[in-house]
């Protein structure tokens, strides 16, 4: 389709066989040029483009209304035409400098032949011509390099016997032979003398061009449409960077012409010549080393040809590999626990801007007429109407009456987004496929996107200001595809390891943990409250007990109400009965669900949490009842968990980190014991009595022993903390249920921070033989090595604090270096893998049809449809 409404029905399809890049010859430049540019001024007093200036109308038009003087086309029709500048003196093309250098060094300065004896020439020529057929470009370049290396050894021309002087390249763009400078004119003469075969040996085959074309005598001027000027609001014209650069070239060139014809002194000519060289160089690329970048009047470096194409901001990565899209929105995200898992809350302002094209039928005409009637400012309404002949009409207060009359089946109405529409929701960096998922719209007040907390995990989002993107599919196919492939319900199980990545988080886990652990009984009223919040409308079948005419139920019964009929046997994270249960067969740590009844055990992360090796219960439900049941279960579990937690009240306290007197005493004893032991080791070491471990020095052995003692003491404190904490400790409950935090975090706050490590060892840097001036020379004890005996709450000593700051800074450095590194790694992986696909014969193939794997993954298993990477059904039942 072309904008003016002409449709090209016949699409011609041809496969591109090959692309060849060649040099432009001066003849061709002249031939394709429609105008010779000589005037540096762009417009006359009336603001009309001057003939044979850079804005000459022969090079195409950018102003609407004007016609191209070459093809007669208007703005969008005329593709633009090249012009050319005739350079007063030749200059080097900066990108060809290395190749010119090779030619100068490898050819005779006198006769222009390649510096190889005839025999060798024939031998290499044959190799070169053969290798191109067999092995392609890379090996051809290798051979050319070999040829060039051969010529380096020859000091006297084998053809005319002339002695060869050393030629040096003085960066950026001048050549010196002996102590005489070679001007572009000299170089041009030499390159002209090189024969076609000699030139082929050095890398330019006659088909690709002639070596002397590397020295510019004519400069092509790109069409105006390549460098459009912008008219500012003030009516002022602002020219493109390329135009600026070109006018520099034209101006210098004209001055050079004038001085040449006036017979000006050699120095002036040379200065102007160098200036011309500079301008032409920066026209091609403005970031050449040792060439100061050409700047705009404001001091901003000009963006010339190479910068337009190259790098992240260049044509390829910015405009071709990535484009801006319509029907998308971006705003801050915030949580909404009452939203369904597969919903997304969309602000009304955004819903009014984003539209879905809906075709008018006799079934929806009433609804759509209502939208059109509402006008563009109300919600729900519509923004555009598309007539059957493809005309797009805005709905406004003036037009809506007419459009309402006109509307009939066959029309398309671009209506506002409404509840239930399928949209794509995305958070960058999009590192895996769950970073883009399809949600159902829920239009809400206020200005943020709202999402269910369970979907935070796959997006890796939090609410400290994160923003997310939303895209609205515009066709029926796109919507269907989005719903069935990218739907949240289809992405619960990650293709990485085949376990749920969507599950209950944080308080939801804590709530269910406490609900299933408590031995309290709940009255029918309480149970009704809890279950209603979890969207369950039935009571458990049999009450656990009955007192005073009221039915009582226990927590496990309540939880069972949200379960589908599954069987489940799996160990929980911690044993709910014994605080330090180490027995792997302890029956209390076994969670047993029979026919959807929680018989025994507690629910924690291992059953309902996201990410491996958790979410086993969700996995069990998926295996038996599929994704939809799982979504429903997760939703209800989350609501029930939060409801229960709200009922009992839950917080976290500073006193959670308090330890009883005995515990503090025990910890002190553990550290004193370790200190004593370490002192003994150090004494042994100093007296030379310490025996080295095999393959280690005595010093290393001492280090090992110290670290071992410290570790042992630290582990002991961990156990002491665990033993002395009360069961109603909120922080401990969170750690045990796996909702947030760990026992280690808790003991860091309450008991001791322990050994700090810097790149895997104790802290050693600092002063001579000691880490800080506060220690004695040669002190290798725990404190001097970064051991923090105190807890974060109790407070660190100044030296401990300093060591802690060292490791803290090191960690920040480490993460800030790792993120971009892994990002680039990811980019490379994506580029390498992006067009692999599984063909219909189950082979994995690349874009050219080459086989990469004969069966996907070697076993043909789609991990996201498996149970933790294993088949869901016994191998015997696999249909061959």
């Amino acid at each position, binding site marked *: 389709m072309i904008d003016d409404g002409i449709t090209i029905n016949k699409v011609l399809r041809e496969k591109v066989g090959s692309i060849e890049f060649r040099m432009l010859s001066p003849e061709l430049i002249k031939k394709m040029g429609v105008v010779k540019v000589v005037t540096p001024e762009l417009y006359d007093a009336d603001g009309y483009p001057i003939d044979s200036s850079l804005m000459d109308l022969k090079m195409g038009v950018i102003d609407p209304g004007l016609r191209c003087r070459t093809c007669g086309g208007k703005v969008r029709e005329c593709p633009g035409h090249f012009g050319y500048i005739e350079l007063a003196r030749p200059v080097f093309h900066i990108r060809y400098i290395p190749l010119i250098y090779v030619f100068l060094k490898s050819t005779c300065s006198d006769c222009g032949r390649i510096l190889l004896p005839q025999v060798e020439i024939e031998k290499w020529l044959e190799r070169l011509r053969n290798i191109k057929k067999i092995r392609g470009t890379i090996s051809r370049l290798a051979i050319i390099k070999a040829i060039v290396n051969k010529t380096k050894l020859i000091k006297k021309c084998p053809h005319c016997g002339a002695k060869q002087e050393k030629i040096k390249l003085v960066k950026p763009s001048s050549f010196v032979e002996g102590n005489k400078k070679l001007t572009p004119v000299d170089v041009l003469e030499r390159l002209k003398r090189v024969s076609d075969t000699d030139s082929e040996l050095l890398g330019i085959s006659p088909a690709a061009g002639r070596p002397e074309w590397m020295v510019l005598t004519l400069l092509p001027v790109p069409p105006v449409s390549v460098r459009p000027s912008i008219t500012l609001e003030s009516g002022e014209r602002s020219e493109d960077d390329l135009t600026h650069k070109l006018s520099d070239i034209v101006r210098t060139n004209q001055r050079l012409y004038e001085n040449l014809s006036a017979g000006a002194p050699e120095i002036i000519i040379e200065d102007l010549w160098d200036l011309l060289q500079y301008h032409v160089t920066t026209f091609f690329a403005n970031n050449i080393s040792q060439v100061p970048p050409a700047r705009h009047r404001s001091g901003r470096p000009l963006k010339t040809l190479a910068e337009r194409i190259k790098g992240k901001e260049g044509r390829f990565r910015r405009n071709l590999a990535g484009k801006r899209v319509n029907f998308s929105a971006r705003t801050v995200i915030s949580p909404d626990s009452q939203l369904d898992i597969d919903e997304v809350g969309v602000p009304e302002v955004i819903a009014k801007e984003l539209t879905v094209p809906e075709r008018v039928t006799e079934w929806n005409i009433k609804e759509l007429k209502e939208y059109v009637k509402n006008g563009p400012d109300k919600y729900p309404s519509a923004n555009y109407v598309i007539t059957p002949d493809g005309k797009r009409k805005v709905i406004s207060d003036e037009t809506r009456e007419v459009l309402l009359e006109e509307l009939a089946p066959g029309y398309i109405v671009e209506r506002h987004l409404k509840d239930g529409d399928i949209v794509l929701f995305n958070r960058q960096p999009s590192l895996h496929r769950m970073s883009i998922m399809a949600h159902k719209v829920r239009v809400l007040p206020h200005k943020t996107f709202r999402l269910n907390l369970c979907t935070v995990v796959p997006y890796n989002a939090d609410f400290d200001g994160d923003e997310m993107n939303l895209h609205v599919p515009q066709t029926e196919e796109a919507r269907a595809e989005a719903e069935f492939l990218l739907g949240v319900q289809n992405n619960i199980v990650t293709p990485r390891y085949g376990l749920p990545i969507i599950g209950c988080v944080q308080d939801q886990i804590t709530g269910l943990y406490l609900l299933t652990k408590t031995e309290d009984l709940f009255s029918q009223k309480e149970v009704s409250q809890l279950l209603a919040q979890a969207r369950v409308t039935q009571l458990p079948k049999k009450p656990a007990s009955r007192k005073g005419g009221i039915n009582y139920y226990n927590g496990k019964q309540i939880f069972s109400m949200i379960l589908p009929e599954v069987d489940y046997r799996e160990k929980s994270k911690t044993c709910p009965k014994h605080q330090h249960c180490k027995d792997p067969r302890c029956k209390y740590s076994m969670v047993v669900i029979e026919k959807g009844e929680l018989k025994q055990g507690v629910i924690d992360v291992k059953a309902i949490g996201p990410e491996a090796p958790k979410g086993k219960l969700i996995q069990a439900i998926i295996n038996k009842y599929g994704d939809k049941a799982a979504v429903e279960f997760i939703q209800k579990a989350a609501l029930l968990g939060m409801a229960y937690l709200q009922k009992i009240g839950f917080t976290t306290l500073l006193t959670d980190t308090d330890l009883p007197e005995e515990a503090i005493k025990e910890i002190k004893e553990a550290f004193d014991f370790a200190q004593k032991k370490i002192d003994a080791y150090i004494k042994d070491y100093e007296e030379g009595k310490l025996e080295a471990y095999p393959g280690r020095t005595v010093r290393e052995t001492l280090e090992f022993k110290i670290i071992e003692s410290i570790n042992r003491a630290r582990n002991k404190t961990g156990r002491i903390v665990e033993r002395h904490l009360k069961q109603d400790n909120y922080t401990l409950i969170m750690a045990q249920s796996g909702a947030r935090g760990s026992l280690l975090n808790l003991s860091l706050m309450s008991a001791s921070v322990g050994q700090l490590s810097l790149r895997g060892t104790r802290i050693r840097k600092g002063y001579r033989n000691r880490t800080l001036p506060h220690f004695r020379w040669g002190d290798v004890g725990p404190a001097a090595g970064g051991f923090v005996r105190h807890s974060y709450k109790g407070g660190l000593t100044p030296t401990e604090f300093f060591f802690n700051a060292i490791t803290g800074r090191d960690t920040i450095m480490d993460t800030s270096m790792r993120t971009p590194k892994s990002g680039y790694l990811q980019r490379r992986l994506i580029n390498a893998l992006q067009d692999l696909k599984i063909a219909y014969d189950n082979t994995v*193939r690349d874009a050219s049809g*080459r086989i990469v*794997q*004969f*069966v996907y993954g070697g076993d043909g298993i789609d991990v996201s449809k498996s149970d933790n990477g294993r088949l869901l059904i016994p191998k015997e039942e696999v249909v061959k």
Partner: protein
Amino acid sequence: MATKTKKGEEKPIDIFKSRLVPDCKIMSPEEEKKLLEKYNITKQQLPRIRLTDPVAKALDAKLGNIIEFTRTSKTAGLSKFYRVVVGGISE
């Protein structure tokens, strides 16, 4: 493939004894034809193995031969893989 013993003698190593080396054999022309027909491909579309690869050397493979690998895996049991022998890049 050979390794030097302490005395400096060369001792050949049977790489197929290593548990890290999968079972492999050179396919007969008939098998090759069947394979290429099965996947509807030419030899150029197969994964490759260097002529200089220890396995190719040990099997005494020639350019253009197809080597069949039989691997064992936890999830798949036995799985087959095929590679065509290609020459290396000179120098």
